């Protein structure tokens, strides 16, 4: 082949490549624009806002650079155990209670549904429905159920408990309705993921365990759990992130007046931004939340080597 032919074919090839690339870019452009507009820009704008004092009602002209003042105020609130401190503690409580509980329940249910069970599809759907239902509607229903004169207390009274608790007033109990709602709605998604994971566990391993004389509990502990550990790891990360962002259930159930003992970080960020219009301070709080979630995720990734079996 002559040099000119080679050059021609190279030119032709790179022209084709360019055209293909352009087509590729054209396909990803809508998604890229959406990503830039709805994710990237707000994220970087938020970082910038966290160093300012700004009330969005007053317009851009009143934006004021304050450096690290917002973060200093957050530390102060933390030191004096004010609202931010309460929100942080409550958020950790929500994470620690809802994540392992929902995952454990989902795994047990998935394991049961993976065996021969009547109405498997209907049961699967029944558990999945809360996940796809409107969070606002579910929160309103739970709010109604846990009211002083709601279904839960009426049931407790009929069971002989003369003074059932005032769930949303009692500072020790006002997290419980929220925790129960979060667990109930999370189970559906985790169940479906686990069912898919369980179906990928080779049956031959269970047969081998049978031959070795393992009982059901031992098979579950030594075969099932390790083999679904990557799925468990994925769910832990996803659920932890979601639990740190808990908002709609608290906001609806308390209708904007979350108490000291059941507020969360995102509820406080929302109140600071849209209640007090301190967008700069709210952005700083959201940066702190981002760093906390990032650290927890990194710790989980570092720790996965010990218990996740690929």
């Amino acid at each position, binding site marked *: 082949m002559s040099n000119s032919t080679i050059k021609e074919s190279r030119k032709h090839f790179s022209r084709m490549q360019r055209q293909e690339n352009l087509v590729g870019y054209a396909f990803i452009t809508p998604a890229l624009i959406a990503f830039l507009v709805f994710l990237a820009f707000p994220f970087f704008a938020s970082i910038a806002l966290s160093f300012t004092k700004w*009330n969005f009602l007053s317009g851009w002209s009143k934006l004021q650079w304050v450096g690290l003042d917002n973060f200093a105020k957050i530390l102060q609130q933390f030191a004096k155990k004010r609202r931010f401190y309460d929100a942080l503690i409550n958020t950790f409580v929500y994470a620690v209670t809802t994540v392992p509980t929902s995952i454990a329940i989902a795994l047990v249910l998935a394991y049961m549904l993976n065996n021969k069970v009547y109405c498997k599809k209907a049961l699967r759907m029944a558990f999945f429905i809360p996940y796809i239902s409107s969070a606002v509607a579910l929160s309103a229903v739970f709010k109604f159920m846990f009211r002083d004169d709601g279904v839960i207390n009426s049931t407790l009274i009929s069971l002989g408990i*003369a003074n059932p608790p005032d769930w949303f007033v009692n*500072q020790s109990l*006002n997290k419980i309705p929220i925790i129960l709602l979060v667990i109930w709605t999370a189970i559906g998604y985790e169940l479906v993921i686990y069912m898919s994971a369980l179906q990928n566990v080779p049956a031959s391993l269970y047969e081998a365990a049978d031959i070795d004389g393992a009982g059901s509990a031992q098979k579950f502990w030594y075969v099932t759990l390790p083999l679904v550990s990557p799925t468990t790891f994925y769910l832990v990360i996803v659920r932890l992130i979601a639990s740190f962002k808990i908002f709609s259930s608290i906001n609806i159930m308390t209708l904007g007046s979350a*108490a000291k003992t059941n507020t969360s970080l995102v509820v406080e960020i929302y109140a600071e931004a849209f209640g007090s*219009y301190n967008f700069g301070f709210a952005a700083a709080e959201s940066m702190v939340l981002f760093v906390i979630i990032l650290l927890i995720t990194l710790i989980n990734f570092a720790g996965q080597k010990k218990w996740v079996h690929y």
Partner: protein
Amino acid sequence: MKKTIAFLMALLLMISALPLAMADEAAPDITSWILAEDPASISGTVRFWIPFKGSQGMDDMIAEFNQTYPNVKVELTTYNNNSDGNVAVNTALMSGEIDVLASFGLANAYKRWENGLYMPLDSYIEKYGIDLVANWGTDVYKYEDTYYTFPCGGLSYYVSINMTDWNEAGLGELPTEWTWDEYLAASEAMTKRDENGNTVLYGGSNYHSQNYYNYVWYQVYGHDMYYGEDGYTNFTDPLILNSLKRNIKADNEDKIWFPLATYRGDNLQTQDVFTSHTAASAISPNMVRFLRDQENYNTPWITGFAPWPVEEKGQTNYMAGVSNFSHAGIASNANPDNLEAAWYWLAWYSTYGSRYLIVAGHQSSWKGTDLSGLVDLVFGSEEEAAKLIDVESFKRVVVNYDNPPYYDSILTAYAKVNSLVAEYTLYAHQGVMSAEEAMQQLKELADEAIDDAL
């Protein structure tokens, strides 16, 4: 002698006639600025936002306006006066969806003045020579020396009483003046308990807002419920502290008042508790709105009215009049093509139109309001009213414009202080901290907010 007597009598008559003549000259004309010279020539569409529905007097108000201004179309939008509703309003203000807005509560109005969401009215006030004191009794509601709204909506504060429970408890005539101790004693008398000692009917209730215990300051001093003489907050003053403790005791210890913590925890409102006969009486500024809505709030009893209790008998009761509550103004992003129409709507709504607020349980604070026929406006007729309420106590207590109202003169960091009050009051009611601790911390934080604002 006779001539002397005749001369003296004539002199006496002349002297007695002088005050009348002077009064005629001194009384300001508070109506000359309101109407356009040629109302029919004013045209446009005014987007008016208020938390009341058309059926709560607003449709009738607009219809009456259109009798004078037939070419101005007023589009009513009803918004929820809660935290999310007010966020929606602020967003709508910024995006230019509102021409005239009625803000409810000083905290909401203050935020909007502070952030330039209302158009300054100073040029109109100057052009038309509007005397705010003569029109609405005060000229203090401004921000940085600029007026943004007219304080045309008011509230009267009263105790609504289930007369069946009142009479069963043998409490006699409705009081024309009573103290807090007397109201608590009446609440105790009307409270009913089951065999286990649990309250099944609360004798009384304060309003479901977290700051009603602060209103004792208004009652005693007539102004500025959050602020002391030094311009800083008064939360550790014995008057406020005792009021808070009194509320907490009635709610949580004696259990004769429907608890504030349950109101907030279960998101209930006072009208729900009173009209469902969970409480025999309740302090409220707007119960009338619900009493006339028998379809949704059926009350198979006669409701009587008693005034706001006082700290000590014989004190002037600044809570017994009609005090400013809502503020109306033109949005800073109002449609410039309809500005003239928006101004004349504002002028009319904040004066003649504001009397329709009574249908929704509020009041007009305009000094030129025609007080005759207010019962008919709310209930249709006195005969219809008598089926639901004690008409005499309604006129004496609810629509009594003779009693002095309270005013605010200090507004520093008002919105922030108000929000802190809501937070720390609940802490005290929920037992998270003692009343003293809550008020101490509240004062520290609120004074910091005032310092930031100054």
